């Protein structure tokens, strides 16, 4: 299934939650007020420019009005009332979006350079880059970071919150329709910032239960194909190309069997080396690269690691 497009639905991406009506209608309220006021400003400017243009007949100003109490009170009090309405409206919806219902399903989100890891504590399931939730169910995300500050942004749900090391932040949402939705990282976090994406798949309750059972493991897919899936799902592609281009990490093209030069010597990239580099990336770091890769220990099953090795083998 393809991720739903963000463009092409007016100002905002199409909402996937009832809560979006709060901020969306506030936006249109301010938008329409602004357009009315802006047209008023432009009209006044245009009128003054034509009417009071300097000309032989109008070399001096015809009046020197410097006070008009009624006008001044009006243009102070009316904007004040309007912004107070806007303030209260914004705060009301902000609170609604901040306080999750008590029965919300809890998910743990961990951000690290440059992937999103999602854990379902109630079900003992863990995924990376793609997560699945049931429709019409309140979902609460408890988030923290393993390195720098990230920010978890779900445009279709109008929610966003920074993901901070050594602290938990939370957001919640409730999907009102099924679909596949975009997740962005919106706090700048380095070279892979714009690749730190994920998808949220909203499915029916039955599908969700089914997914919990089989979806998170690889099933019966042949190893190289599974490896290809892992390559994108776990965001390996953010740093490792398969076309020979140098990225944040070394390319996988022609990697298998090659000699790797590290600070302390040279090592052959065989199955064991690759496995070690996935579990403990900094053990034998190739010269010229920064130690930024996170460990995938506990994230990838043994079968998935095998699959990655097979996939790398295939990149000749």
């Amino acid at each position, binding site marked *: 299934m393809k991720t739903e*497009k*963000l*463009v*092409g639905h007016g*100002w*905002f991406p199409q909402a996937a939650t009832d809560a979006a009506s709060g*901020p969306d209608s506030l*936006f249109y309220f*301010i*938008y329409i007020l*602004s357009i009315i*006021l802006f047209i008023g*400003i432009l009209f006044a*400017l245009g009128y*003054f*420019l034509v009417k*009071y*243009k*300097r000309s032989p007949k109008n070399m*001096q100003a015809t*009046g*020197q*009005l*410097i006070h*008009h109490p009624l006008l*001044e009170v009006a*243009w*102070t009090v009316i*904007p*004040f009332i309007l*912004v107070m309405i*806007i*303030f209260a*409206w*914004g705060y*009301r*919806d*902000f609170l609604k979006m901040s306080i999750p219902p008590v029965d919300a399903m809890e998910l743990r989100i961990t951000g690290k350079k440059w992937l999103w890891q999602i854990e379902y504590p109630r079900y003992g399931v863990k995924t990376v880059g793609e997560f699945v939730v049931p429709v019409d169910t309140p979902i609460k995300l408890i988030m923290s970071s393993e*390195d*720098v500050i990230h*920010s978890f942004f779900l*445009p279709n749900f*109008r*929610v*966003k*919150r920074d993901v*901070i*090391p*050594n*602290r938990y932040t939370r957001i919640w949402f409730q999907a009102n329709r099924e679909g596949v939705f*975009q997740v*962005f990282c*919106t*706090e*700048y976090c*380095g*070279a892979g*910032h*714009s690749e730190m994406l994920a998808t949220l798949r909203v499915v029916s309750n039955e599908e969700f239960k089914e997914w919990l059972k089989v979806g998170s493991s690889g099933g019966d897919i042949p190893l190289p194909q599974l490896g290809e899936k892992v390559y994108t799902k776990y965001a390996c592609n953010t740093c490792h190309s398969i076309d020979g281009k140098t990225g*944040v990490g070394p390319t996988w093209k022609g990697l298998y069997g090659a000699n790797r030069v590290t600070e302390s010597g040279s090592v052959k990239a065989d199955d064991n080396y690759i496995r070690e580099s996935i579990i403990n990336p900094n053990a034998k770091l190739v010269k010229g690269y920064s130690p930024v890769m996170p460990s995938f220990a506990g994230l990838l099953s043994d079968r998935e690691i095998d699959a990655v090795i097979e996939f790398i083998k295939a990149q000749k």
Partner: protein
Amino acid sequence: MSNEHGNYLTNPKGIWSWLTTVDHKRIGLMYLLFVAISFALGGIFAMLLRLELFFPGQQFFTAKEYNQLFTLHGAVMVFLFIIPSIPATLGNFFLPIMIGAKDVAFPKLNLASLYIYVFGAIFCLASIFLGAVDTGWTFYTPYSTTTDTSVVTMTMGAFILGFSSILTGVNFIVTIHKMRTKGMGWFRMPLFVWSLYATAVIQVLATPVLGITLFLLILETTVGVGIFDPVLGGDPVLFQHFFWFYSHPAVYIMILPAMGIMSELVTTFCKRNIFGYRFVAYSSIAIAIIAFLVWGHHLFVSGQSDYAAMIFSLLTFLVGIPSGIKVFNWMATMYQGSIELKTPFLYFLSFIFLFSIGGFTGIMLASLSLDVYFHDTYFVVAHFHYVMMGGTVIAFLGGLHYWWPKMFGKMYSEFWARIACLFIFVGFNMVFFTQFLLGAKGMPRRYYNYLDQFQPLHAFSTVGTWVLGAGFFIMLFYMLHSLFRGQRAPQNPWGGLTLEWQTSTPPSVHNFDETPIVTGGPYDYGKEDAHV
């Protein structure tokens, strides 16, 4: 118009006389040169990074180079260009003349500010070659304490530049208090002077906080004192509070002098006394004070408490109102005026147009629920460019075209100046209005790569930078032409009443041949005996 001392440009002669000058006018011009170079540099960075964004994926730069480009664009534009822009150039040049003084209160300190600025700028520029910073101009921790780029050199530069800003602020405050000529009461001061006063107050009170913050950051990166980095027991969000405690008031350091210029432009080109002088004057001070209490609106999604967010949102709305009323005051000043559509007034009109859009979108961003959505998207990028470039830079250009004849004694080509203004106005809207659309559709800022569906909007925005750049190129050419081949400027080409128009062009070394005595308000158009 010669006189016993001769004009300040040629008396005394020689490079050395410029480098050791304590004349506020010469110092203002030297600042103008450096600030213009910084703007060109920051602009080139901007055009390069927009070029990279024409298509998604890699075009010309790697991800890291792109990150360095947008960081340098921001840091150069903020620290080297926009903060000193109006106060240190036009402010330095005209503040003493406008209050009838011979110079600022501490001329040598003024020269010291310039040298400190140059010294700080050298650090900032050196950092480009020592592994250019890739943190964004905001230096958020713990990214900034863990990256391998030259964060220390760049922040050291910004730290040093801060002292230049503080000293200029102190100088202006004392000058305004102590150096006003006979009859120049507080409420006879031109509004540009009022705005510089409010700006100076912020410079003096807020800049030290930035200095301390950057110093703590340097301590953490070099010695490992744990203040912001959680690994060392620090709190990364603390950095954001410290940083914005300065950097939000700094937004008003940028915009208040621009508002001051607007008051000068509208009165002179409409031959009108300003509508609501006291309100415009006091609101600068009010804005300067409230400006210190709104920093938290940069942290609505950073996990600060919901109540803190509520207070910051409320105060942000309150600080917006005086700015809005000022716009109404300027427009009311046009009423029954005699409006001359010269280039500076075109910039006045551009400002009203662009700053209004900046203001409306500011209201959207001050609303808590909407800011959650817009935060760190292109919507915010577009908003602050509408305020900073559509506001400050446009007003700066308006002021530059307004005072240029007085500063250099030469006129520029009115025709080409209008063409350039048109290019800048159209190009600017192409670049940044598009970014409102991108942001509203969810496009996050500081993205090297982006989803294919955003490509048409990104490409259009990039084309806009070419139009905008062309406008500035035209300006460069007619300004240079004016300097070398321009027609002699009359003493008072626009018929202004403030004191700078009453002295010779270019002004003499001591500004006035006789100390002026002020007998009326600064904009007493329509009175036969309008002051002096």
